């Protein structure tokens, strides 16, 4: 017998939002079987999104899929963040694990075999339904699907591919799909994954091989590098062929990315950045993500629970990463064996400028674009604006200020069409002090390094 359940009963179980109950909304055709179904899926979603959240990547950009045959979805080229969680991170994709059962025992991972947690697994249809229904409501740009490894690499990968295939072929879905490539998966499966997914990623996990050996003895760096190389070749091939034949089927059009955990082991920023640089240069990676280690284990190889997440360090690494990708810096300009850690109190660009004061001040009305981009306080878009605007007339302080240039930084490094500038022979340390006392670090209050006394 199917029994109707009213909104009040559901609300008791936390299923209905406040305004629905107040408005007296009744689930007319809602029956107990449906109720159990929702309950089960809620439980799974909680477990499997909680386990997936330490994967940083949430990019939805670079997808080039267009809606065809009145299907569902298209890719916004620049990506869209539909929400931001209370930790300030973007929510662009439905980021879940297919299952958190795992045969591996990696110390840094919540889903490790030895961890005593609730386990769950989605069915293929459940993932498809969640993705489609969230997408239709404009909650997400698409799906980020990863998984614990059950049985073996290929068995797991096969199921991930199946979901992507179903979304694309049965549901005519053109939204974004990011699949995790399982280390050790066969080339045939990777190839199929690339046909349905926009992005593929394999996490390198630790910046060095020693770090990985220490924390993830079951994992093998070679198993990660091999599929990365395979994807790199396939992506390159696709890029070459698409120029010649317009109908070439897309292969991971948004490229591949990877992620490493920072602060779980003793690696220096030098090691982290050189590894990242290698991936950008040699693997043509689209992105390398840095994940400040969030303590989740009492394992004595790892920082204790309660140790603060190295947020400032993580931020400095991202800043350095941006300098490599968009500001044409070489990695050896940012970090050196003599100083293997990035400055925590100032950003790597300012830090570089202070080490190279001899090339400053630069004349804002004459310097070439690549040099203008290197001035602290001037980002890529400001640099482009300056270069475009100076064709009309020579720029002075007033102009720069109104154009939104961060003069509190830039003024120590530039001259312009005004007679008064800061060309006094300041020492690097002085400039640093001036800038630090005037500016407020965005981290000052939120993540003070100071440990409270009480």
């Amino acid at each position: 017998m199917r029994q109707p359940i009213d909104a009040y009963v559901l609300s008791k179980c936390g299923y209905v939002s406040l305004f629905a109950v107040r408005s007296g909304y009744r689930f007319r055709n809602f029956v107990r079987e449906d109720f159990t179904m929702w309950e089960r899926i809620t439980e799974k979603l909680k477990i499997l999104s909680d386990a997936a959240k330490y994967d940083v990547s949430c990019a939805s950009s670079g997808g080039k899929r267009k809606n065809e045959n009145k299907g569902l979805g298209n890719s916004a080229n620049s990506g869209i963040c539909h929400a931001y969680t209370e930790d300030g991170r973007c929510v662009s994709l439905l980021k879940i694990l297919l299952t958190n059962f795992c045969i591996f025992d990696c110390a840094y991972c919540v889903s490790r075999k030895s961890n005593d947690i609730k386990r769950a697994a989605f069915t293929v249809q459940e993932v498809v339904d969640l993705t489609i229904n969230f997408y239709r409501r404009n909650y997400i740009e698409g799906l980020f699907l990863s998984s614990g490894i059950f049985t073996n690499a290929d068995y797991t990968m096969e199921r991930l591919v199946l979901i992507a295939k179903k979304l694309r072929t049965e549901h005519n879905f053109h939204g974004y799909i990011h699949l995790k490539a399982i280390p050790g998966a066969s080339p045939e499966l990777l190839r199929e994954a690339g046909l349905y997914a926009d992005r593929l990623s394999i996490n390198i996990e630790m910046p060095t091989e020693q770090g990985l050996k220490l924390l993830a003895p079951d994992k093998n760096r070679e198993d990660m590098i091999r599929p990365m190389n395979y994807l790199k070749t396939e992506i390159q091939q696709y890029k070459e062929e698409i120029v010649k034949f317009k109908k070439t089927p897309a292969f991971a059009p948004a490229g591949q990315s990877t992620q490493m955990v920072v602060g779980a082991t003793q690696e220096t920023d030098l090691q982290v950045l050189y590894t990242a640089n290698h991936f950008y240069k040699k693997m043509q990676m689209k992105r390398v993500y840095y994940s400040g280690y969030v303590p989740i284990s009492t394992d004595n190889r790892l920082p204790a629970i309660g140790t603060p997440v190295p947020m400032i360090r993580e931020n400095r690494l991202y800043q350095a990463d941006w300098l490599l990708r968009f500001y044409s810096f070489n990695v050896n300009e940012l970090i050196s064996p003599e100083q293997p850690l990035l400055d925590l109190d100032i950003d790597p660009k300012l830090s570089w400028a202070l080490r190279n004061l001899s090339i400053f001040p630069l004349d804002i009305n004459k310097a070439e674009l690549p040099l203008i981009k290197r001035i602290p306080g001037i980002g890529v878009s400001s640099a482009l604006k300056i270069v475009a605007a100076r064709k009309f007339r020579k720029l002075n302080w007033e102009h720069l200020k109104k154009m939104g240039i961060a003069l509190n930084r830039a003024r120590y490094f530039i001259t312009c069409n005004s007679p008064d500038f800061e060309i006094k022979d300041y020492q690097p340390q002085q400039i640093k002090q001036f800038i630090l006392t005037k500016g407020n670090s965005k981290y000052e209050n939120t993540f003070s390094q100071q440990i409270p006394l009480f």
Partner: protein
Amino acid sequence: MQTLIYDGSFEGWLCAVFDVYEYKYANVTICTDNQRQDSLWGETRLVYTDKQKADRVVKGLKQYISAVAMQQLYKTFLSEQKGMEDMLLEYVQYVFREKKDIAKDYSHHAARYVDDTAHKVHREKHRMEAFVRFQKTGDDIYFALVEPDFNVLPLILKHFRDRYADQKWLIYDKKRKYGIYYDLHKTEFIQLDFDTQSSNKDIAAILNESELPYQQLWKDYFNSTNIKARKNMKLHIRHMPLRYWKYLVEKQPEI
């Protein structure tokens, strides 16, 4: 001082610009009827909106400025900011005086104003593409209420039409009292008999029965994907300003 009263549409404004050149007004201000401030000495004239005149102005502008710059003018117009009509006029006069694309002359006040304002409007457009939350109704229409800072519905139309080609949807701007409706074939601007008291509550009464469970799933997902050890409310609010929370499913209070 000559005051030109136009009908509030972009075409109307273009016709006002046409009139400025036609009648060689030197000291002129363009505004809508409800913004007018009659002064003792000023003269007031009503602008007649005529598509042909508007097209001529656009054609003239396109000789000198790029399609991107043209789009910036339109975006600035949609900002509905006080005084934007006159700033846009200054921009146009600058173009016709210099006879070249001055869009990137960022040290000129009108060019900078247009660039800045278009940028703000574009950001709001992008936010709407992100923050629209559809609720599925009993008759299978995906419905969303919004109150954007600027009049961005005309700008987001294409994005939603391309994306949700196989579902009926309706996005309604509650502040400006109009919406866009897609019926699986075409989109159209519509107005609803929607009294100001109606709110989330009334909408809830007509929802599809799977709607609230999905909303709850989304809220659960939103909460469990958050990393508590990294809490940073300042950043959270900077990205999702409070004024948008009203229509965000995930920010509705729990029971």
